[in-house]
């Protein structure tokens, strides 16, 4: 069974990335034959983008469907949130296929073949199902398609929305499970990582909703959505901070490769990205701004809205950096 003629795949690959045969091979290559704690290098920025975009996109879709159900979000804000969530999910699919290899990009269907054992297969199936289901749910709102039997308020429509929520939740968990399921890298091999990624996915999705409401429906809508959302954002910031601290502490007392990862995180080249990007920018700074809003210090003027939007941007950047640093400090143990 052949995936695709190699020459065709390579010609497409050259057109896409300028790939040439002199590119280095991946994995444990080279001339050093010594014992070490090698850092994994093949899961980098593109996988971090995939995990961030997929997780946050799923968070968007989950919350947009749920909050629209409970009447917190206006119809237009929910619609924009949905399209944004779908766009993020689609971008995440592009990011993972761009990462997956010079041939798989052009034979993507092969990544769907082994959902029984492979988390990558499960992930691409879940995120593709999520996108297709959400588009199906949105179909009755299209001009001329109002008569479809799964419009908002129908039994079938409610069932489809519940499925969308289940898929979104599954993908948020998946983004952590895909790396925590493998015990090759001790720093990833904990269920706490899934909890952490789900928390950051919810946070990324929830925090952005007031900004979308501002852009779509104006400042009063932002205040309306924010009145409901900000306390939850604050709670999520606190919960994520606690889970992150527990995760780092747990790993700092775990096996030696995990301790090496923690040392790299706190003292190595990614320490600025972790401490500055994840802890300060992604958690502490937004927590200060959102707390000020929740206790009523900020007021309701445009300056406060800009400050809150800045906090939202910081949360999103912190969410990406979290995935990025977790991947970059993945360390294997010795092979023996």
């Amino acid at each position, binding site marked *: *069974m*052949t*995936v695709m003629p*190699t020459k065709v*795949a*390579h010609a497409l*690959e050259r057109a896409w990335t300028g790939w*040439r*045969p*002199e*590119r*280095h*091979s*991946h*994995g*444990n*290559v*080279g*001339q050093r*034959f*010594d*014992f070490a704690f*090698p850092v*994994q290098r*093949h*899961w980098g920025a593109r996988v971090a983008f995939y995990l961030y975009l997929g997780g946050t996109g799923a968070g968007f879709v989950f919350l947009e469907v749920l909050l629209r159900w409970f009447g917190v979000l206006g119809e237009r804000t929910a619609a924009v949130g949905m399209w944004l969530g779908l766009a993020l999910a689609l971008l995440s699919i592009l990011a993972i296929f761009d990462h*997956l*290899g*010079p*041939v*798989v990009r052009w*034979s993507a269907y*092969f*990544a*769907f*073949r*082994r959902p029984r*054992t*492979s*988390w*990558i*297969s499960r992930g*691409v199936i879940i995120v593709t199902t999520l996108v297709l289901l959400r588009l199906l749910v949105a179909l009755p709102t299209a001009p001329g398609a109002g008569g479809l039997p799964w419009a908002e308020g129908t039994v079938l429509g409610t069932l489809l929305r519940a499925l969308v929520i289940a898929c979104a939740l599954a993908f948020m968990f998946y983004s952590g499970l895909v*790396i925590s399921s*493998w*015990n*090759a*890298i001790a720093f990833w091999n904990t269920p706490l990582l899934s909890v952490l990624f789900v928390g950051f996915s919810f946070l990324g999705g929830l925090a952005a909703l007031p900004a979308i409401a501002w852009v779509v429906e104006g400042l009063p809508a932002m205040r309306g959505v924010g009145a409901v959302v900000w306390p939850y954002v604050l709670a999520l910031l606190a919960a994520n901070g606690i889970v992150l601290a527990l995760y780092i502490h747990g790993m700092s007392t775990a*096996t*030696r490769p995990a301790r090496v990862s923690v040392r790299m995180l706190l003292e190595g080249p990614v320490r600025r990205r972790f401490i500055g990007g994840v802890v300060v920018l992604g958690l502490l700074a937004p927590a200060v701004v959102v707390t000020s809003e929740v206790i009523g210090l900020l007021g309701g003027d445009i300056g406060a809205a800009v400050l809150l939007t800045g906090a939202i941007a910081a949360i999103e950047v912190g969410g990406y950096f979290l995935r990025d640093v977790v991947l970059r400090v*993945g360390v*294997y*143990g*010795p*092979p*023996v």
Partner: protein
Amino acid sequence: MTRMGFTIDLERCVGCQACVIACKVENGTPRNIHWMRVLEKEVGEFPDARRTFTPVRCNHCANPPCVQACPTGAFVQRDDGVVLIHDDVCVGTMACLTACPYYVPVRYDGGGGYFGRQLTMYEDTKLSRHREGTAQKCHFCYQRLDAGRPPACVEACPADALNYGDLDDPDSVVNHLLQRRRHFRPREELGTDPSLFYLVGNGGGSVGGMDQGEAR
């Protein structure tokens, strides 16, 4: 049932790297890619310093994480336990690279030969067996096994440090060695059920100068 296994005698290995070269010649692996490696470590201090050698290769685990992680089904396990990659199905996802705790699989992305982009006739012939953009690893020289010959690394070892055989056959060489010698398997605690055993004789459980507990 047959389950092919492998023993490596750490007391006999002299670090000559003959297995590494034999593997390279047999399989024509690309530049910088070695399916067999002999890890070295210096231990102790002068005048008691010594160098230890630990050959490592694919362990052909009975519960292989690479097979489970591969989304395309390119990794398969034969009935005799040998784990193979079908490079016409592999699309280079690198899931196996991340999943394998022994970081054995590599993805070959080209890179020319040992003398630059212009390949020698030998390299041209050997490299034509390897498909760019796909994963590769030790396949237990299955073509030799099927012909009744030992893997190239075993055949080349001058110190008889490497042996192979059917772990399910009580009369096989490997089972005789395992009955006589102290042994352990690499990172067994991860549940991969490797088919490779390190024989440590009476010298205790140190590998490459690294106490096993130190690595955990």
